[in-house]
């Protein structure tokens, strides 16, 4: 039997209600589906681009010969050597075993992208991605960290609830759920923490204030794509770019939430990542960050008015449970 609804107008109750709406107001899985498809697509393209190097990077007679790869990276976590040891009783050699691991990773990503056995596909993709990260740690960088983080979320969050073969086959309800909302919120907050930490860390370096860092980054051999030495004659441009980066990253955790400022912040952060991709050659890092930002903050999880009525089993225009008093839709997104 339900407890009677009491009209509690105390500030504490107000905060609790607001928090409840922010974290649990039913949301559609559209942003989660965009994240799933985008993440899988970027990782598939990345796999296609580096597949020629696969054996060189992970085999015992590759760049890290014998057990040398174990000297790098964290000591905890699976490695290709462990998986190959499990496969060896089946008579599977190293090269065949590595190809099988690579193929399984690609199949898992394809299934994740299509939303077929989504959770299992996400779990397999996450595990194999982690295995590959650990097995050639010196070759990894930021794009791998973000992919690892969001593949892990894809296991737990209902990313297969929309635009997926699972939803098509099972004919499951597409109704907004609290699970989609809390999953979205955790990932959004994680992204905010990462930008804030990155921005604050940058702000402690004088080179980010006087503009030297961008000039330097553009001239380092690993990142030099174009001759940007002319920037030295216009230091104000480099300095403004540095300040803009600091403002965008530090301000992200505040200004990405209100709808009005999000219209400015989302294009700003997407431009920042496009700039990094084009000028520093970090194409996949740029791509994955654009996918994350666009999916998590660029796609509304709110049911459209006609859908709200549909989900609630009422005709469009009539009052639905989603618009009942006391059950306000989240205004944050």
């Amino acid at each position, binding site marked *: 039997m339900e407890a009677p609804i009491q009209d509690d107008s105390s500030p504490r109750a107000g905060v609790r209600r607001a*928090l409840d709406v922010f974290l649990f107001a039913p949301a559609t899985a559209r942003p989660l589906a965009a994240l799933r498809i985008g993440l899988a697509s970027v990782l598939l393209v990345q796999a296609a681009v580096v597949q020629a*190097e696969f054996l060189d990077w992970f085999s015992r007679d590759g*760049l890290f010969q014998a057990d040398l790869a174990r000297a790098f990276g964290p000591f905890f976590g699976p490695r290709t050597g462990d998986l190959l040891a499990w496969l060896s009783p089946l008579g599977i050699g190293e090269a065949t075993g590595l190809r099988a691991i690579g193929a399984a990773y690609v199949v898992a990503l394809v299934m994740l992208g299509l939303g077929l056995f989504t959770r299992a596909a996400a779990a397999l993709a996450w595990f194999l991605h982690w295995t590959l990260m650990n097995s050639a740690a010196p070759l*990894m960088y930021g794009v791998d*960290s973000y992919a690892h*983080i969001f593949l892990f979320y894809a296991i737990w969050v209902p990313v297969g609830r929309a635009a997926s073969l699972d939803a098509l086959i099972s004919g499951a309800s597409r109704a907004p759920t609290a699970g989609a909302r809390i999953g979205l919120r955790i990932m959004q907050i994680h992204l905010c923490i990462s930008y804030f930490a990155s921005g604050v860390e940058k702000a402690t370096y004088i080179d980010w204030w006087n503009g*030297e860092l961008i000039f330097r980054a553009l001239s380092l051999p690993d990142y030099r794509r174009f001759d940007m030495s002319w920037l030295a004659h216009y230091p104000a441009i480099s300095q403004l770019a540095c300040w803009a980066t600091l403002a965008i990253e530090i301000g992200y955790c505040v200004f990405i939430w209100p709808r009005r400022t999000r219209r400015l912040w989302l294009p700003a952060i997407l431009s920042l990542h496009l700039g990094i991709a084009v000028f520093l*050659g970090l194409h*996949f890092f740029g791509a994955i960050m654009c996918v994350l930002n666009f999916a998590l903050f660029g796609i509304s999880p709110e049911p459209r008015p006609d859908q709200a009525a549909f989900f609630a089993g009422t005709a469009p225009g009539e009052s639905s449970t989603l618009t009942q008093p006391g059950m306000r839709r989240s205004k944050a997104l």
Partner: protein
Amino acid sequence: MRSTPRRWLLVLAAAHLLLVTLGAAGVELRDVGPIGRLLYHYGLASGAGCGYNFFTSRDHGQLVLHVDVIDAEGRRTTRSLGTGASHEADLRVAHIAGEFETADPELRRELAKSLAAKMFDRHPEAREVVVRVEYFVAVLMAEHRSGREPQVTRFYDARFRQPPPRLEARHGSAHPG
């Protein structure tokens, strides 16, 4: 919040995001007893322990890795460790240079030996392979305006000779003893 599962979900989410915050702040949980170690391992598995200090080096330089292949006639050619098939692959391979800075001398030597072995494998004509790590120091904008060029200094190098063909290989059969 209205039900027990939600309350538990909130507690788990808050704990996870707390770990994300600690990871972002660079707090090392590994050394904080068994629970710290457990959380550290969870952080590795979930990515919650990641740091986000991109482009925050106080260092004005970067280590750059070169591999020279020297053939029987003494011709020296600088080769890439990547296959050159993609920029992404080249970028990742270039990151190996950073390991020469952090690794201990023995590990540094092992890494150089491993890279050289790969190059001998890839270039059968090679008689010697030289693994060179240079330190590239970028200039400041004012220095560039005054005509100063970036400096490149030697950081580490190691020369490896192709081992002579083994007896059994030359004779085409195994030679016991």
